[in-house]
């Protein structure tokens, strides 16, 4: 114990007071029906997100500095290796050109670009959730300054990631689709049977409210249905893993999302063109 510590008996009223105050704070956040967003959340978020961004910057700079040092120390060997790699890459580039042409052809066929009236804003993941067992969120280094608004769809080339929930000037908190409180409209690509996709709080999602008559197979593709008005229809979500017995009235299946959320480094915000926010 430190000198001058208060005896435990005196600390109990303070402890009780703190708990009551925290309960009041939590109650206030829950019972605020007007804005849908709490003052406490905004203050806490605004206070610490710049600190987070600064530390993220310093962290990246230190890592880059160390990497550059080691790189320079082995420049000669690296040069030789790179020359070999260049010749390999030339061959690979020809292959990539072929794939690119094929991709363009497929894209034209699908007319995906024309179908999505969205502007893409790329962002880098700077941090992950401070308590993964409680919620699933990501911090991205793009904010209102870059045109991000609340409730914007967030995707990767693999599939959807989540929705922006708290937007600061230079950073955004993204609620992942695997979070227990996240739910969006989704459907089975085969048969176009729609349901509600909710996160299970771990690394997968549950597609609920499918009719009992529908046949679901392991590996079936799940896409967004666009019913919730945030995600456009037809974006890839994931694949069906197994059936979950939740109710005898409807069918539920476990869905494994396409993006690997522990290794997502870059995400794309879908901004509807011509509007500030959705």
């Amino acid at each position, binding site marked *: 114990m*430190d000198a001058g510590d208060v005896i435990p008996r005196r600390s109990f009223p303070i402890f009780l007071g703190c708990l009551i105050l925290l309960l009041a704070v939590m109650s206030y956040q829950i019972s605020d029906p007007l804005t849908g967003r709490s003052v406490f959340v905004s203050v806490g978020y605004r206070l610490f997100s710049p600190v987070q961004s600064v530390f993220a910057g310093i962290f990246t700079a230190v890592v880059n500095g160390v990497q550059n040092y080691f790189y320079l120390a082995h420049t000669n060997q690296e040069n030789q290796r790179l020359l070999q790699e260049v010749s390999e890459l030339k061959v690979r580039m020809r292959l990539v050109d072929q794939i690119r042409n094929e991709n363009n052809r497929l894209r034209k066929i699908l007319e995906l670009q024309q179908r999505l009236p969205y502007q893409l804003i790329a962002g880098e993941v700077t941090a*992950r959730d401070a308590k993964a*067992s409680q919620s699933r969120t990501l911090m991205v280094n793009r904010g209102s300054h870059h045109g991000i608004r609340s409730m914007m769809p967030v995707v990767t080339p693999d599939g959807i990631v989540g929705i922006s929930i708290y937007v600061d000037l230079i950073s955004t908190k993204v609620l992942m689709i695997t979070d227990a409180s996240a739910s969006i409209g989704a459907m089975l690509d085969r048969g176009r049977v729609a349901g509600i996709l909710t996160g299970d709080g771990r690394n997968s999602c549950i597609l609920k409210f499918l009719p009992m008559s529908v046949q679901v197979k392991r590996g079936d593709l799940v896409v967004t249905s666009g019913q919730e008005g945030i995600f456009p229809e037809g974006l890839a979500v994931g694949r069906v893993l197994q059936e979950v017995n939740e109710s005898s009235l409807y069918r539920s299946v476990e869905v494994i999302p396409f993006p690997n959320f522990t290794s997502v480094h870059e995400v794309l915000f879908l901004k509807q063109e011509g509007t500030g926010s959705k």
Partner: protein
Amino acid sequence: MKPIRTIFAIAAVLLVQTMVLGHFERAQNMDLFLLLNIYYALNFSPIACIAVGVTSGIVQDAFTGGIIGMNAFSKTIVAYFIAIISSRLMIKHPLILMLLVAVGTAVDLFTIHLLRKLFGLPHLVLSYPTYLTAIVLNMLVGVLGYRITDRIRTRMEYV
């Protein structure tokens, strides 16, 4: 307890938790904020623990998807009761420390569940392996971390 040192400790825990542990599937279940609180509970007064519990909990809440105050609430409870126990008993044996960390982790998770239920938030469908991973990782890393920190503190005080 030195406030500046405590703020640095909270900042360091935040950085490691959000920027390092988040990349690892199993390690992300570890709760460094809880370990920090238990460390303070073992070494400082209950009042100091309440202050650290509330502060670190709110910082954790700001970077978590839930509502602000949940982690502050659970951390304060865990830290306070461990501080009360440690003010009466000498807790130095690694096995007792492990037990304290395990109970602390369980109480923390249980309190969060209780609060989510109280405020009508969606139920967390976490599996027992997830809980077990959190408890075991917290136990091992906690006890090891406390040992190292104690040695560093002793050496610094000696110097």
